[in-house]
C-alpha cells in the first residue's frame, strides 16, 4: 500500500535510496544536498540497508569511488551540489564514456560566483555535455519518483549511461510537502537486482575498462555513446509507463499543461513550473489561452517532440535558470530554438533568464511574462525576469 506522507525533497530521495538499497554510496557533504547522505547514513547505522557507505575526502573522490564500485559490478550512487559537482567534472565524463550506469542525486545550486548557496541550474547545465542522462523534478513527489525510476533507465541494455536526478536546492530539497511513498516491496520489485553483463570482479571474464583509444577508435566510441543517449528516450518512456501502471502517476519526457489550444506558452524546468501553473490557471480564467511545458528530461533532449508540442502556439518564452555567458541567453533557449528551427516551427520565441542564485519566482512574475507574450512585446535576443533594471 502506498503511503501518504509529508517530507522534504531530500528526505524523499533518501527514502527512495533506502528502498533501492544500493551496494555502494560514497559521499562528501555540500549544501544543500548534505541531508541526503546524512539521512542515508542513519539507515546504514540502523541496519536498514546493506550499503557500503564511504565517507570520502572530496567530490572528485566520491565520483571516482562511485564509478570504481560500479565498474566492479556494484550498484552505486552519490550526491552533490554546485561546486561539489564542479570538482567531479573530470570523472563525470569518464563514468559516461565507460558506460557505467551509476546515479547522482543532484540538488541544484548555483556555481560560484558570487558565492551563494541557493538554487539555479548552472551546475547541472554546465555538465550537459558530459554524457549523463538528466531528469528534473517540480516537487518532492517527482524527485522521489525520478529516483525510483533512475536505475531502470540507466542500467537498461540499450542505454547503460549514468543518470543525474536533479531537484531544486532548498525550494524542494528543504521544503516539507505532501507526498505519496510506495511501499518498500513495490520499489524493490520495480527496481530489481543489478545484474551487470561485464564487470571487473567477474573472475570468469577478465576485462580491461577504459583503455586508451587512439584516433582510429575514439570517434567511433563517441558515436556509439551518442547512440545510447538516443536510445534512452524510448527507455525513459517505457519505464515511466511501467511505473504509471503501479503508481498511477504519469511521466513523460515533458509535461504539457493546458497546451491543447494554447497560443502563449512557457517552457520551464523544475520547481518554478508549479508556480507557472498557478499563473496559467489565473490567466485562463481571464480568457488568455496560456499553456505550459515543463521539461522533465533534458538529456537526451527531446527537441523534435518539443517543437511538435509548440507547433500551434503564437509565441513562446523559453526559460533558463542558468547563465551561459554566451551573449545568446541560456542553454535551454539555445537548444530549443535550434530544435524549433530544424523542425520548421516558426513561432516567435524569446529566451528568458530567471531565478539565478535563488531569486524567487512569483506567480505575478509569470503572469506578467505571459502578458508580455500576448502583447508581442518581445525583446531582441534574450531577457531577464525578476531582475532590477
Amino acid at each position, binding site marked *: 500500500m502506498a503511503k501518504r506522507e509529508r517530507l522534504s525533497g531530500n528526505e524523499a530521495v533518501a527514502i527512495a535510496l533506502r528502498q533501492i538499497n544500493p551496494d555502494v554510496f560514497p559521499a562528501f557533504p555540500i549544501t544543500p544536498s548534505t541531508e541526503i547522505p546524512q539521512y542515508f547514513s542513519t539507515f546504514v547505522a540502523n541496519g536498514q540497508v546493506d550499503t557500503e557507505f564511504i565517507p570520502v575526502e572530496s567530490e572528485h573522490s566520491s565520483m571516482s569511488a562511485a564509478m570504481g564500485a560500479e565498474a566492479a559490478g556494484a550498484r552505486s550512487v552519490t550526491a552533490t551540489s554546485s561546486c561539489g559537482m564542479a570538482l567531479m567534472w573530470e570523472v563525470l565524463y569518464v563514468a559516461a564514456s565507460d558506460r557505467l550506469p551509476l546515479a547522482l542525486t543532484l540538488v541544484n545550486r548555483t556555481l560560484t560566483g558570487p558565492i551563494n548557496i541557493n538554487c539555479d541550474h548552472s551546475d547541472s547545465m554546465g555538465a550537459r555535455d558530459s554524457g549523463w542522462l538528466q531528469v528534473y523534478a517540480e516537487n518532492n513527489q517527482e524527485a522521489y519518483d525520478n529516483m525510483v525510476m533512475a536505475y531502470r533507465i540507466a542500467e537498461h541494455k540499450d542505454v547503460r549511461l549514468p543518470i543525474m536526478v536533479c531537484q531544486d536546492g532548498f525550494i524542494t530539497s528543504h521544503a516539507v510537502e505532501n507526498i505519496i511513498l510506495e511501499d518498500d516491496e513495490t520499489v524493490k520489485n520495480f527496481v530489481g537486482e543489478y545484474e551487470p553483463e561485464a564487470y571487473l570482479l567477474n573472475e570468469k571474464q577478465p576485462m580491461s575498462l577504459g*583503455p586508451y583509444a587512439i584516433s582510429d577508435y575514439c570517434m567511433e*566510441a563517441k558515436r556509439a555513446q551518442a547512440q545510447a543517449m538516443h536510445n534512452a528516450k524510448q527507455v525513459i518512456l517505457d519505464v515511466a509507463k511501467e511505473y504509471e501502471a503501479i503508481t498511477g502517476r504519469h511521466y513523460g519526457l515533458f509535461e504539457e499543461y493546458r497546451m491543447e489550444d494554447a497560443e502563449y506558452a512557457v517552457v520551464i524546468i523544475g520547481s518554478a513550473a508549479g508556480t507557472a501553473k498557478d499563473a496559467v490557471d489565473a490567466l485562463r480564467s481571464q480568457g488568455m489561452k496560456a499553456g505550459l511545458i515543463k521539461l522533465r528530461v533534458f538529456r537526451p533532449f527531446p527537441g523534435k517532440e518539443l517543437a511538435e508540442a509548440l507547433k500551434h502556439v503564437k509565441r513562446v518564452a523559453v526559460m533558463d535558470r542558468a547563465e551561459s555567458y554566451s551573449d545568446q541567453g541560456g542553454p535551454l533557449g539555445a537548444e530549443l530554438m535550434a530544435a524549433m528551427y530544424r523542425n520548421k516551427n516558426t513561432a516567435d520565441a524569446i529566451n528568458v533568464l530567471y531565478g539565478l542564485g535563488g531569486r524567487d519566482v512569483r506567480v505575478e512574475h509569470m503572469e506578467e511574462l505571459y502578458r508580455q507574450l500576448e502583447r508581442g512585446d518581445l525583446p531582441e535576443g534574450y531577457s531577464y525576469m525578476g531582475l532590477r533594471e
Partner: protein
Amino acid sequence: MQTDMSKLHPGITWREITEGTRICAGGTSREFNTGEWTTVKAYIDEEKCKQCLLCVPVCPDSAIAVKDGRRLPVDRDHCKGCGICVKNCPFDAISMKEEERENG
C-alpha cells in the same frame, strides 16, 4: 560480452565497437606487437650468461620469460628496445643490436 579480438582493428565501425571500448578478454597485450616500435633489440650472449635471471624482473614488457628455472631467449615481438636489461646485467652478457632478421 566476450570481445571478439578480430574486431579490434582500425576499420571497425561505431556500430561494432565494444561498449565503452571495453576489452573483455585476458592476455590481450600478447597480440600487440610492441616489438615493432624499435630498430634495436636485446641480444644475450649465451657464453657470458650465468642464468642469474636478474634481467627478467626489470624488463617493462615481460619480454624475457622463464621456464623451468631458466630464462628463454628475448621475445622479439614484444622487446621495445629500452636497454634496461643491458644496464642491469652483472656479466655484460646483453647488448643492443639492430635486429637480425634471418635468425631472430
